[in-house]
């Protein structure tokens, strides 16, 4: 295991694209949350009746403990940014034929796949740490006097980590099967941004909400819309909360299946 981590670190540390994308992600996560925060402020800081109503309805989703949930939800929209890195990691191995050289030099095929699993895990951990940092700074800067429940919804860190890992694993699967970087990126981004949201929307009120079982939506539902939505649609909010538990199970099952497919294909494929 140490050898795999060490070797992947040797590959990553000189890969400029990785650090650039991480830099973009480091800007994008606080950026998207700041946009939501500005929207919240413009709604609630008005002296009008509408402003007072909005404050009453929304509360403060950017303070502890709700901030963990709010930032997780906002940040999860941008998981496609680190997915670019994951797709490049595996596509590069095909483009440079280094996956075959890694085997020739002495890794087993399973060790090669484990090294890629480590890449996805490392990226997921970095993204999660970034999320924790953004959430904490945001929560601390909106900390209401007398309130101490800082870690009340800290479990969203675990849910965010699981969702990130699951969705990056899906990006990896696409790149592993397609092999070509730009084609993989095109397919994944089209599916992530356009096709699946469209299908989920179409299926929402039809065919027993079957869109809930589409690959990304399975893990999307482990982080529901933030708590203020309970004031808008109490039933909808309750339903979304009740979906978290089964969707954690579905997410773990799907992610395990993705990696089983990758390991199996890799053990039989001509490299």
């Amino acid at each position, binding site marked *: 295991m140490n050898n795999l981590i060490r070797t992947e670190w040797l590959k990553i540390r000189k890969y400029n694209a990785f650090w650039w994308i991480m830099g973009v992600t480091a800007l994008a996560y606080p950026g998207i949350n700041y946009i939501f925060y500005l929207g919240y402020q413009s709604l609630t800081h008005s002296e009008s009746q509408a402003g007072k109503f909005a404050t009453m309805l929304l509360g403060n989703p950017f303070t502890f403990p709700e901030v963990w949930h709010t930032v997780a939800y906002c940040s999860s929209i941008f998981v496609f940014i680190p997915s670019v890195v994951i797709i490049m990691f595996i596509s590069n191995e095909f483009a440079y034929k*280094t996956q075959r050289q890694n085997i020739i030099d002495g890794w087993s095929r399973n060790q090669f796949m484990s090294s890629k699993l480590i890449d996805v895990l490392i990226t997921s951990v970095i993204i999660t740490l970034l999320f924790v940092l953004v959430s904490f700074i945001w929560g601390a800067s909106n900390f209401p006097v007398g309130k101490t429940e800082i870690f009340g919804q800290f479990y969203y860190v675990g849910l965010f980590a699981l969702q990130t890992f699951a969705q990056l694993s899906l990006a990896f699967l696409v790149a592993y099967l397609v092999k070509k970087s730009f084609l993989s990126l095109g397919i994944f981004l089209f599916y992530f941004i356009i096709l699946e949201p469209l299908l989920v929307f179409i299926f929402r009120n039809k065919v027993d909400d079957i869109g809930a079982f589409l690959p990304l939506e399975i893990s999307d539902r482990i982080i529901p819309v933030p708590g203020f939505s309970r004031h808008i649609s109490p039933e909808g909010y309750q339903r979304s909360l009740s979906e978290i538990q089964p969707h954690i199970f579905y997410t773990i099952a799907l992610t395990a299946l993705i990696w089983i497919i990758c390991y199996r294909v890799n053990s039989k494929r001509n490299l």
Partner: protein
Amino acid sequence: MSTVLTLQNISKYYGRFRALNGVSFEVPEQSIFGILGPNGSGKTTLLSVVLDVMKANGGNYLWFGQPGSGAQRKKIGSLLETPNFYHYMSAIDNLKVTQSISGRGNASDIDIALKKVGLFDRRFSSFRSYSLGMKQRLAIGATLLGDPGVLVFDEPTNGLDPVGIAEIRELIIELRKSGHTVIMASHLLDEVEKVCTHVAILKTGNLLSVGDVEELMIADDVVELSASDLGRLAEILGKYNAQIIIKRDENNIHITLPRGSAQLEQINKYCFENGVVLNHLQLKKKKLEARFFELTNN
């Protein structure tokens, strides 16, 4: 002498196309083993199978008497088809990856390998900035890392200039002298003839011949003769032996006789007794190239 690699009835198909058809042979330790064949004969496929880059459809192979595994491959320095490195990384960083995976050598061995292939001064340049020949040199350097006892080279002189080709030839001869085993696929017959101790010849996935290079090349005796009257010489040689094959060029006559039947003293005496005084008489080995063309019917 023990066996480094044993192939047992290896077959490989690409759809209906049979790339390897029940190939079996053994590579003895401390040999320089050439795998020869025209384009598409299955040389690279064969090496890909024994390096686990491709899965055979039938048969099996043993490295050092054991089924092939990552642990076995770590003991082998291999260059398969093309230099495969991370383009954004320098030569030294790429060799660090090779060292980390294979466990062969250490930081100072990386410098030694780079010096050996003449890339030490460019060790911090990125791989993408290298010429084709430099990339090939780096790939050879990676195989030498940690001085493995067995090396596998697939067309090692690809992309090299004449100086580079001569250097690789010297390197392989040096490896042979120091007791290494080298398995080398090539279509450069002259190179193989100069350095190899053993050879296997493949054609369209079938093994045509395998064995000691010397034995393979002297399947027949070839004698080169010359005299002031080449016409008369050719005439009398035609009556010397029923199995003789005579070829004539501008200055010499080459006769081919069944292996072991060319007695130079006897030939000299026969010519003299028939009124021809020879000014040149030499037993020659058949060139590997000629033998190769005979076997592959090209």
